[in-house]
């Protein structure tokens, strides 16, 4: 597993009710969310700073070809 600091922008036109779900859905595209918070709002765009984790993958070569193995 590795941790990554990322920042993403979310459209604030989502209703306040849907905003946290929209943020988490966007972060899920980058990894497993661990910690996030809105850092700034500019117009209709919300800037989110977050930490996500991803699993480490290694490529191994076998007689039948390469395969990805999750560590």
């Amino acid at each position, binding site marked *: *597993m*590795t*941790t990554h*600091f990322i*920042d993403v922008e979310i459209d*604030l036109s989502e*209703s*306040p*009710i*849907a*905003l*946290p779900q929209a*943020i*988490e859905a966007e972060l899920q595209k980058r990894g*497993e969310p*661990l*910690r*996030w*918070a*809105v*850092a*700034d*709002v500019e117009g209709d765009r*919300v800037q*989110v*700073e977050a*930490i996500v*984790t991803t699993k480490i993958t290694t490529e191994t070569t076998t007689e039948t070809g390469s395969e990805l193995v999750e*560590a």
Partner: protein
Amino acid sequence: MVDWVNQTRPFTAALIVPTGIGAAIGGYAGDALPVARAIASVVDRLITHPNVLNGAMLYWPLPNTLYVEGYALDRLAAGDWALRPVRQNRIALILDRAIEPELQRRHLQAADAARATLGIDVMAAIATDQPLGVSLKLAPSGASWGTITQPDSLLRAAARAIAAGAQAIAVVARFPDDEGDLAIAYRQGRGVDPIAGAEAVISHLVVREFGIPCAHAPALASGPALADVAPRAAAEELGYTFLPCVLAGLWRSPQIVRDRADWQASDLTGGAVDVAIVPASACGGAAILHWAATGTDILAVEDNQTTLDLTPAALGIRPTRVRSYLEAIGWLAARRAGLWAGALAPQPAPLLPLQLQDPGPDPRDPL
């Protein structure tokens, strides 16, 4: 006379002071603990997190207060997890392999002291199989963040602890003995806590993976007594470790129930929180946004300034704004008593004149 309403539906507040954003109150060495003590005295239940209650060698037992790690708070607010109060937890202590022998001995002694002098069940001490590799950074917003290079080593140690029967986990990781500008400013009561972000990552990793109470204390070398330590930072200058407050907090930290099928009527869910209290410029965290989305009252405290500059209105949140925690405490007391706050103002506004409206269709009419 029995207060039937507050007995059957305890008035519950969540106090949040995000770590690592330089909060004027709560951004240092457990300096929001007096706020927690005051709020706990006017509510039936208080939920708060380690950054508020941890004062290194200092802590204060609050019988109606739940010590809940930040990731678990986020999931509670999202409606995903519930909390189950317990009488006590068996705590495992995980020590970073990078801690040098003498400092490790200090932490084991702190654990022994907690066992013998406080009666806290620290059941085991486990070293990680690799140095955790703490690194510290600053985000573009100015908030502290950091990470560890060996998260899997931490999680393996936690898995071993849980297999051995641990119900809560205290982690001690070796942090850099940084004497840079940020650390100096922090001791002088200015700026952000440079280690806060990495600390949050460490405990969040364990809580997210295992759904178990967890908190972190940094291992740092002790130095000479300094002349310019601000009162808010002084609690972290008192001893060899920051571990005592973590053990005191985890002692009775509620268990986490992740599977909704296992929830019991006596468990505490996010919907049971009546009000969440937060610095006014820091309403963008996951827990506050989730609670705001479900209509929970948000109490925004204006004089607890942070490095952030984010108005609640910009996020579509309509909080109740108070100038100070003192004013917040008054608001909470009135709310618990079921009072209209306007009655406490010198000139409560009168009702608007009665307005007639067209009769319109009778809603009872089936046609």
